[in-house]
């Protein structure tokens, strides 16, 4: 690893603006005069025929402007279409998500009607008067039962409930898997259905401006440009007439990177009613009708040589993706992204994987921090723990012997992913030293003698970040462009507006982008203004997800900065009447090689704009640089988590006593922001391991639709998180940057549950997360019985 000087923490201005209540979230956006408000009528049934809708009494409420049903929208608004490239190497069946259900509802919370009213109070009251006659049908609520031939079909036009299926690696029944002399371990692992639960729920405000023919849609979204694509397609309006603005967004975590029916409906109604329309999601809607995530059931087997070296991994995953396939990642998102995460950072010579997305009568699945990647370590780290137990080895040793070595990069994983750089074993050692692993093991033994159940969990993982176009091409995800853009607009006074296609959900990207520009251009922070989140002012690009902000957005910005410096050099050279090779850019200005004479940034900006300066035609006036950037690789960050937990054997309560993270996300632009990302992710990972679960009953009723039932970690559940960094730059990306947005939530679940199982000294064949006190008690009882 190359030693680098650590950058100081970035500016606090952006954070303070948000923390001091000076942010402008969707509900803070000043509503135009005459704004109408929406309330959605949602299905209480998981699966039912809609026989009739009586909207008469709702329509008669004073203040109600319109009551809209599915039939009203059916011919005007095309359902949200999530498409994959048609190919032979996977099965994919489209299951479009309509703005409103028409003759059939497919999950509890699916909208069947909208009340448009002068204010939200009236809208809600009138929504309660919409009389819907449902004929309930048997619901598909279990992912395995959904695959039986007799199961009801979530989409009658499809032959069964399989929406996506892919195979990776060697066929599962190949003879190689029967090689003798190997130690085998197997298990069934369930990652619960969870959600990102941002503090600010979804929201949309849409206004049609007849003066300019522009439909402006403010949305609490991560993907302004892609949402504009989806709106354009569904509404049949040219994208040039649509403008999407993401104001400050109060958390998103992937849950706001889908195009949603509510966004479609609000935009459409603003357009046809010629009045602004607003909808703010409440928490009940957020938990039942926004996107859910994960919900994976994986059967897996690992075989190793007696010394612990992995011989092969074979896995089959079922992903319960709910009722519809979502734009832009489609329901392939979980099964496809779990594939590279199963071999993880290890050398696996033989691999077989089948991932299936299964439709059920539950809320559709979308992205959530890590997407399918956390499912990999849940399985593989669990199998490695079992292997260590079976071989009588330390769990750390079976990891160390299998990690890809520092001199093997670039390394092509068996899953097809290219690992560009890293030092996995070095990072493991760094984290173990920080945690005093040997000391923890000694303490565990001593405390066990005192009857205390201490356990230690270690997880090693990779985080694919800043996915490039090739990655989406490989997956067939044709609605994700895979690149980002940056524009640098320099005014005559030398001030820079940098517009980047990466909006912020509170990660302080503006601060990090400013740092990149200051370092690259050598200009002062005060001369830079960062513009994000508005399709009318930012270049086209993916948006903020898949840990792409710094890699892809930062990469585009650095590329633009490089082009700007070249242009500055040419401007200076023309001004001096010398060849461009005779000048170079240095510290915010251009220097003439012959005598050291300098033109600074402001002077050059003036030259580009002033009529006094003659410029060659090919150079021309004005100073605006555009750059699009497709990262040359999907760069792979890596991490190691070490958790020490104490389990109360009587109550099943878990207390996390120590938590260490070893993080290698390449050069850190803003260490404070990196650590914030890691900490937040660890908290969410603790949630998946111990608390969070969206539970449906056999009729498809959601039983955890309030925060009294869907438990998220509070400050008492999240320990002090000690983070130790390694900064291995990627040889391929701009400035060697790697992403970090999802790391915490990938590493935490296996470290935490591994520690719990270590504490109770039991590795069950069937692991159900989260490990609630009840489940832990049951495991303790099963252990006693076995």
């Amino acid at each position, binding site marked *: 690893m190359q030693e680098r000087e650590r950058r100081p923490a970035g500016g606090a201005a952006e954070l303070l603006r948000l923390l001091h209540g000076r942010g402008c979230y969707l509900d803070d956006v000043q509503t135009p005069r005459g704004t109408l408000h929406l309330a959605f*009528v949602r299905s*209480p049934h998981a699966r039912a025929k809609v026989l009739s809708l009586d909207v008469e009494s709702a329509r008669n409420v004073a203040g109600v402007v319109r009551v809209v049903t599915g039939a009203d929208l059916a011919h005007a608004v095309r359902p949200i279409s999530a498409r994959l490239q048609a190919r032979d190497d996977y099965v994919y069946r489209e299951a479009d998500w309509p703005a409103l259900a028409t003759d059939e509802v497919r999950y509890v919370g699916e909208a069947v009607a909208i009340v448009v009213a002068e204010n939200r109070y009236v809208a809600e009251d009138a929504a309660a*008067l919409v*009389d819907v006659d449902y004929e309930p049908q048997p619901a598909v609520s279990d992912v395995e039962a959904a695959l039986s031939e007799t199961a009801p079909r979530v989409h009658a036009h499809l032959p069964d409930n399989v929406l996506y299926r892919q195979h990776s690696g060697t066929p599962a029944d190949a003879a190689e898997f029967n090689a003798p002399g190997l130690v085998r371990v197997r298990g069934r692992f369930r990652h619960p259905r969870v959600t990102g639960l941002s503090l600010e729920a979804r929201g949309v405000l849409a206004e049609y401006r007849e003066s300019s023919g522009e439909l402006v849609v403010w949305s609490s979204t991560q993907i302004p440009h892609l949402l504009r694509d989806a709106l354009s397609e569904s509404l049949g309006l040219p994208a040039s007439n649509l403008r999407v603005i993401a104001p400050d967004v109060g958390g998103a975590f992937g849950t706001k990177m889908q195009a949603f029916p509510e966004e479609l409906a609000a935009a459409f109604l603003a357009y046809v009613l010629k009045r602004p329309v607003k909808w703010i999601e409440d928490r009940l809607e957020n938990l*039942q009708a926004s996107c859910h995530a994960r919900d994976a059931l994986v059967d897996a087997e690992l075989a190793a040589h007696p010394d612990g070296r992995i011989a092969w991994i074979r896995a089959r995953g079922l992903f319960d993706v709910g009722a519809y396939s979502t734009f832009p990642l489609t329901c392939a998102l979980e099964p496809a992204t779990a594939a590279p995460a199963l071999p993880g950072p290890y050398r696996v010579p033989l691999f077989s994987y089948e991932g299936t997305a299964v439709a059920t009568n539950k809320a559709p699945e979308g992205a959530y921090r890590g997407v399918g990647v956390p499912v990999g370590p849940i399985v593989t780290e669990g199998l490695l723990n079992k292997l260590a137990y079976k071989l009588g080895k330390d769990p750390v040793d079976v990891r160390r012997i299998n990690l890809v070595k520092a001199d093997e990069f670039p390394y092509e994983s068996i899953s097809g992913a290219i690992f560009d750089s890293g030092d996995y074993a070095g990072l493991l050692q760094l984290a173990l030293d920080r945690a005093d692993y040997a000391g923890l093991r000694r303490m565990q033994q001593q405390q066990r003698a005192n009857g205390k159940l201490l356990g230690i969990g270690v997880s090693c993982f990779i985080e694919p970040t800043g996915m490039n176009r090739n990655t989406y091409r490989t997956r067939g995800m044709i609605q994700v462009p895979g690149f980002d853009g940056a524009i640098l607009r320099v005014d005559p006074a030398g001030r820079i507006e940098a517009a980047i296609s990466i909006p912020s959900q509170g990660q302080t990207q503006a601060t990090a982008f400013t740092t990149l520009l200051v370092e690259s251009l050598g200009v002062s922070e005060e001369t830079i203004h960062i513009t994000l989140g508005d399709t009318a002012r930012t270049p086209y690009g993916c948006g903020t997800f898949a840990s792409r902000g710094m890699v892809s957005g930062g990469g585009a910005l650095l590329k633009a900065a490089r082009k700007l410096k070249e242009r500055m050099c040419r401007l200076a050279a023309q001004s001096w009447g010398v060849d461009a090779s005779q000048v170079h850019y240095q510290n915010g200005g251009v220097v003439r090689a012959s005598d050291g004479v300098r033109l600074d940034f402001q002077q050059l900006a003036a030259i580009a704009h002033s009529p006094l300066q003659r410029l060659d035609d090919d150079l021309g006036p004005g100073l605006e640089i555009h750059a699009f950037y497709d990262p040359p690789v999907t760069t792979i960050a890596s991490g190691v988590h070490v958790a020490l937990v104490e389990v109360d054997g009587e109550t099943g309560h878990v207390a996390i006593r120590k938590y260490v993270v070893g993080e290698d996300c390449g050069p850190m632009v803003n260490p404070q922001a990196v650590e914030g990302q890691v900490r937040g992710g660890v908290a969410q990972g603790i949630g998946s391991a111990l608390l969070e679960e969206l539970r449906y009953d056999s009729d498809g*009723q959601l039983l955890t639709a*309030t925060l009294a039932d869907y438990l998220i970690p509070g400050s008492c559940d999240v320990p002090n998180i000690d983070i130790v960094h390694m900064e291995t730059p990627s040889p391929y990306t701009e400035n060697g940057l790697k992403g970090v947005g999802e790391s915490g939530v990938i590493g935490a679940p296996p470290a935490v549950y591994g520690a719990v199982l270590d504490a109770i000294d039991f590795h069950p064949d069937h692991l159900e997360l989260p490990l609630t006190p009840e489940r832990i008690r049951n495991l303790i009882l099963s252990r006693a019985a076995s």
Partner: protein
Amino acid sequence: MEMTGQREVPVSQQAAWDALNDPEVLKACIPGCESLELDQEGGGFKAVVRAAVGPVRARLKGRVDLSDIVAPESYKLAFKGEGATGFAQGESEVRLVPSEAGAGTLICYTANAKIGGKLAQVGSRLIDSAANKLAGEFFSNLTQHLGGESEEKPSDATATEPAKKKKGMFGFMKKDKGDKGAAEAQ
């Protein structure tokens, strides 16, 4: 949700049977019942009932159908109601047994119900206690309607008579244990 229970009413089996088949009596006794009338077409009753489960208030429109009628001993009923905040549907079996102690009648019932929508989402943890409370109120109302005293509300007499006073408190505790008159939620 399932519940079973029994309550004694101070009237003959026939009188109890008549009451349980009389829309007017049912309407008066079902807590939150806005309307209940015989459905001339399909048999059974059409009903509108308001109910609250925790913070959710529901106005359910639906119907009740009777089957396996063995007058004056037993019937089965199926109920189904739907409103903006969700739905409730289920079945119940009601059996009337002359009480051993005297002229009264023991009303034994089992019920199972499903709820959905906001009712289930916000109220699922509260539904058992809410259902028990409603059953309790119904039988109190019925007892009162049939000329007996409500067990729910202590009357003047219980306040002055030591024996009955003891019964009030003691009876309440017994009820909680699922003895006499208590509905046991499972």
